[in-house]
């Protein structure tokens, strides 16, 4: 549980994020938390609420708003994912998502850098004693292929073939990332593209990245796949791997066709707050941790 000062710090953290995006001409939106349909992703298990689902991410509705021609959107909201609980996971957590029309993932990486540097300066100024100084001088990029070659005793091809990509990433790669300043792990294999667009000049990788600081994954961003036909095929594949029932998000797919190019990102705010407060467990930055409820 946060102390009184910690609660003030958390509030200032959220206020500074809003200040950043508003000053960069983003529109703050709020979209439904409760929805009859969610985007099917095999590894994300939703929390059911009656006949509907609590959102696992605001992505579906954020993109439907983009399709209506809004250029820059952001949202801070709770997200719910069943069965996720640990040092870096909560079943209910705070997500920041932002989207650009007509941009790609390079813009998002630039945004991350500006946002986190802005937050560091703003919070240090208001809370010099509480705010931990992060090493933000050098921001690096490394591709997934490079990271595997450098840190993992098994080749990336073998890892994908044997379905051990996640285990090897967690065991060998993640602990190395973001130790001497933030690192973007970029260009995920096409098999892990999720809702990302494949690279125009290399269809084996997707324009997707994860931001790591101190070995902790902070954000996942990508150039959005805007081809509704291709997206439908990927969803169909995901749906066969789901352990719950959901229907094809038809309205989403219909409106996705209206988007030419876009980029979007989801950032785990509790984890970023952990870094600024030098905490090691996500429970420590909550008003009420699960065990205190």
């Amino acid at each position, binding site marked *: 549980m946060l102390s009184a000062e910690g609660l003030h710090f958390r509030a200032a953290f959220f206020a500074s994020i809003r200040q950043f995006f508003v000053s960069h001409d983003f529109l703050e939106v709020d979209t439904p938390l409760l929805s009859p349909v969610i985007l099917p992703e095999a*590894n994300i298990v939703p929390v059911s609420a009656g006949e509907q689902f609590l959102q696992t991410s605001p992505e579906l509705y954020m993109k439907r708003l983009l399709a209506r021609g809004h250029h820059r959107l952001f949202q801070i909201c709770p997200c719910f994912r069943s*069965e*996720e609980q*640990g*040092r870096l*996971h909560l079943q209910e957590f705070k997500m920041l998502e932002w989207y650009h029309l007509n941009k790609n993932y390079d813009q998002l990486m630039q945004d991350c850098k500006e946002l986190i540097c802005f937050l560091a300066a703003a919070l240090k100024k208001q809370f010099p004693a509480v705010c931990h100084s992060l090493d933000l001088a050098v921001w690096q990029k490394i591709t997934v292929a490079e990271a595997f070659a450098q840190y993992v005793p098994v080749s990336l091809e073998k890892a994908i073939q044997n379905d051990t990509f996640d285990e090897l990433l967690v*065991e060998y790669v993640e602990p190395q990332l973001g130790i001497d300043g933030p690192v973007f792990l970029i260009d995920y294999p096409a098999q892990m593209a999720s809702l990302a667009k494949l690279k125009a000049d290399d269809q084996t990788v997707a324009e997707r990245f*994860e931001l790591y600081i101190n070995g902790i994954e902070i954000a996942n961003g990508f150039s959005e796949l805007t081809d509704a036909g291709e997206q439908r095929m990927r969803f169909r594949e995901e749906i066969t791997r789901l352990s719950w029932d959901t229907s094809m998000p038809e309205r989403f797919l219909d409106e996705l066709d209206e988007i030419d190019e876009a980029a979007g990102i989801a950032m785990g705010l509790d984890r970023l707050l952990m870094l600024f407060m030098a905490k090691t467990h996500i429970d420590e930055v909550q008003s009420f941790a699960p065990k205190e409820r």
Partner: protein
Amino acid sequence: MFTASDLRKGLKIQIDGQPYIVTDFEFSKPGKGQALYRCKMRNMMTGNQFSKTYRSGDKFEKAALEERKMQYLYNMDNEYHFMDVKSFDQIFIQKENLGDNVNFMMDNMEIDVLLFDGKPIDVSLPIFVNLVVTIAEPWAKGDTSGNDTKPVTVETGYVLQVPPFVEEGDKIQIDTRTGEYVTRVKE
């Protein structure tokens, strides 16, 4: 049955017919990836340790462990005999399976015995035991030769370092977790 989501530090599970205890645990889930349950485990019979990462669907059997309160009776030919205080059943455990515990076990002492599949695999002693010193070099009061401790032997045959003022016939308290002297006990 347990599933991977039940894994946590201290959970006792059975793998290939052997009991294991989870000694370290972390949940992780790389972006858009699988939920992973990373464990360090110790085989409760052999003491062997290993690390393994499990996924959501993995299932485990509960280790067939049972803890029973027993009274230590006596030892003969390296067999240590115990009696269940409720059922009066008697069992014995080989000396080598008791490890350092034999240093602190006195006749009639009550001990928790852990059984796997009905077979005893471990005992847990009280944290502190009081034992009588049977052999000690005499201490000349005022000796300032600078020795902070001296070795003594207690009634179980165990030898440990104690302050120089401890004498033969004294009762001393020993921490069974470390095997170290705690204090002299006045009757």
